[in-house]
């Protein structure tokens, strides 16, 4: 299990190559990659802040929950911090399980948590200034599907 933050651009494909390798009992690997959107020019840079140490620990607790709840063989989470250009990956989540339903659901669960509960603060910079982003009502509703 791997939970990491990085302030450098990363390639989600390289992470998937590593994650899917040498698994002879894992039938299913699901991944999610979140990319920074340009919003047709309205967003020029996304700025992500974490609380180093605390952020990884909080994500790690949810990662443990996901492993147990969905019977995962493994998972990996990499989250970008700092200034992110449109088109660059912000977050990568990979889950490995015996069968596809568990892999999909765990990936979905982890993303819902990351969107609305993980200790990150996100600011959009654009031609009309900057603004802090809070989770949407949809983000909260998505997370509540899982209880707790």
């Amino acid at each position: 299990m791997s939970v990491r933050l990085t302030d450098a651009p990363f390639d989600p494909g390289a992470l998937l190559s590593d994650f899917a390798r040498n698994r002879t009992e894992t039938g299913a690997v699901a991944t999610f990659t979140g990319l920074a959107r340009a919003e047709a020019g309205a967003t020029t840079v996304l700025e992500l802040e974490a609380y180093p140490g605390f952020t990884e620990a909080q994500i790690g607790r949810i990662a443990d929950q996901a492993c147990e709840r969905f019977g995962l063989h493994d998972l990996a989470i990499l989250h970008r911090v700092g200034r992110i250009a449109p088109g660059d990956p912000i977050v990568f989540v990979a889950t490995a399980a015996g069968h596809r339903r568990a892999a999909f659901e765990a990936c979905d669960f982890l993303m819902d948590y990351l969107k609305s509960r993980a200790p990150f603060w996100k600011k959009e910079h654009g031609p009309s200034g900057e603004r802090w982003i809070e989770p949407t009502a949809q983000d909260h509703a998505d997370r509540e599907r899982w209880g707790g």
Partner: protein
Amino acid sequence: MARVLLFGALRDLAGWRERRIEAASVSALCAVIGQEDAALGEALAGKGVQVAVDQAIVRDDAVLADTSEVAFLPPMSGG
């Protein structure tokens, strides 16, 4: 003196990210900050702001030690 950290919109509002402030509890710390900067004091008490002491989420009456790290965490949004 506790080490106080602000994140997200709270940091922009305060104009600082980290300071050392003397206070015996989280609520006392909020009062000290509020006297100096009323808008920030109000924001710290705002809906959805959580407080962590030494990287664990605590209630407002949590006691502080001289070496405590206190972080004010506005609503979070990753991914």
